[in-house]
């Protein structure tokens, strides 16, 4: 087993040992989303119009909730030193950590969102599109959030700082993710939006592991 898969498997195993951590993230997503239909009432047209934006924002905030601990736990127990000293690229370790984060947050959020979309009165096609855009877009949130988590490692009040760093960088993903559903409602296809989301994810994939590794080395000094 390579270092990459070992680290990925370790982080997933740690999540399984403490499922409550992911449970809180998913519960936040559900509660934050459901509040809108409850607060606005049975205004089906209005709810359907805001559904994508609400669900995307809730997914972004939910992902951010768990990002603060992405590297902090390793930093606090000394395992970050072992990663820094592993005889393989730290960039791959950064990628493994972000992938583990996406598997336990981005993926379940993407699968859960269409069910919550029903509460907003979205039709079947829009529900599928919502899940698809989140599936393509949430890896970007994990990668950008990973970078913010690495940059704020060891800083006091790092949670707020992390959000301030990550949220502006996630705006393009948010715009194209939520915009896809509006485009669909207007009768157009979502291929362009999904392609742009995929491009954003690829740009994040090509750049953030190096930046995360540099930030982790800095924190390890």
């Amino acid at each position, binding site marked *: *087993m390579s270092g990459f898969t070992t680290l990925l498997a*370790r982080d997933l195993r740690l999540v399984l040992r403490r499922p409550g951590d992911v449970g809180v993230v998913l519960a936040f997503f559900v509660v934050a989303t459901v509040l809108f239909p409850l607060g606005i009432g049975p205004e089906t047209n209005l709810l359907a119009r805001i559904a994508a934006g609400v669900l995307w924002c809730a997914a972004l905030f939910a992902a951010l909730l768990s990002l603060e601990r992405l590297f902090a736990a390793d930093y*606090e127990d*000394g*395992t970050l030193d072992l990663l820094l*000293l592993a005889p393989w690229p730290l960039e791959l370790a950064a990628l493994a950590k972000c992938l583990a984060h996406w598997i336990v947050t981005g993926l379940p959020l993407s699968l859960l969102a269409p069910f919550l979309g029903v509460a907003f009165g979205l039709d079947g096609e829009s529900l599928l599109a919502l899940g698809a855009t989140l599936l393509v877009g949430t890896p970007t949130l994990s990668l950008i959030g990973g970078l913010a988590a690495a940059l704020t490692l060891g800083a006091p009040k790092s949670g707020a700082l992390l959000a301030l760093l990550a949220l502006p960088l996630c705006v393009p993903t948010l715009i194209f993710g939520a915009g896809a559903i509006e485009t669909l409602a207007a009768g157009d296809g979502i291929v362009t939006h999904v392609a742009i989301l995929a491009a954003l994810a690829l740009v994040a994939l090509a750049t953030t592991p190096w930046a995360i590794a540099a930030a982790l080395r800095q924190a390890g000094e």
Partner: protein
Amino acid sequence: MVPPLLEVKDLSCRRGGRTVFDRLSFGLGAGQLLALTGRNGSGKTSLLRVLAGLTPPESGTVAWQGVDVAQDPETWRGRLAWLGHLEGLKGDLTVAENLGVAERLRGGEAGDRLDGALVAFDLGGLAAREVRTLSAGQRRRTALARVVLSQAPLWLLDEPLNALDAPAQAAFRTALQTHLAAGGLAIAATHAELGIDGAQRLDLRGGGLRAEA
């Protein structure tokens, strides 16, 4: 004369605008142990971290078999076993899982050697216990077992005797002597006597340096 395996030349380190150590030079050959001593804050941990490559030096070089380790840091990291102030263990994993994961992260496979490392530090009965349920001494022993398991030629140890009782200290000395007898090297920052005959000593004193090797 056989050149030392590890050669440190004019190594300097500054942190927070303060010189931690300046133009430090020493060599270490196969089977040799260097004990770093000095008061709190004298730079023992900083020296270990600079040697490991965790902290960049202000100036100077670290060479292994005559080659500057900065030329190939990944190979250099593969030659190191690290024990820091913190144990580097995951509380939610068992002792055996922690050791297995650490070895695979180093690119190796613990396999049959895992039992030997556990027995060396009397951890056989704790292998299936989650680390968060262990005492400080038991966690330290687990971290030391990880060092033994690595089979790395150079051990960098920060206060290895911390929290260890007398039998565990004896187990550590036995493991260290076995490592040195096999041609390994070790550098240990310590406030306590390591109890290894022939150990060299480097005394770091408040920014200055005095070698007693």
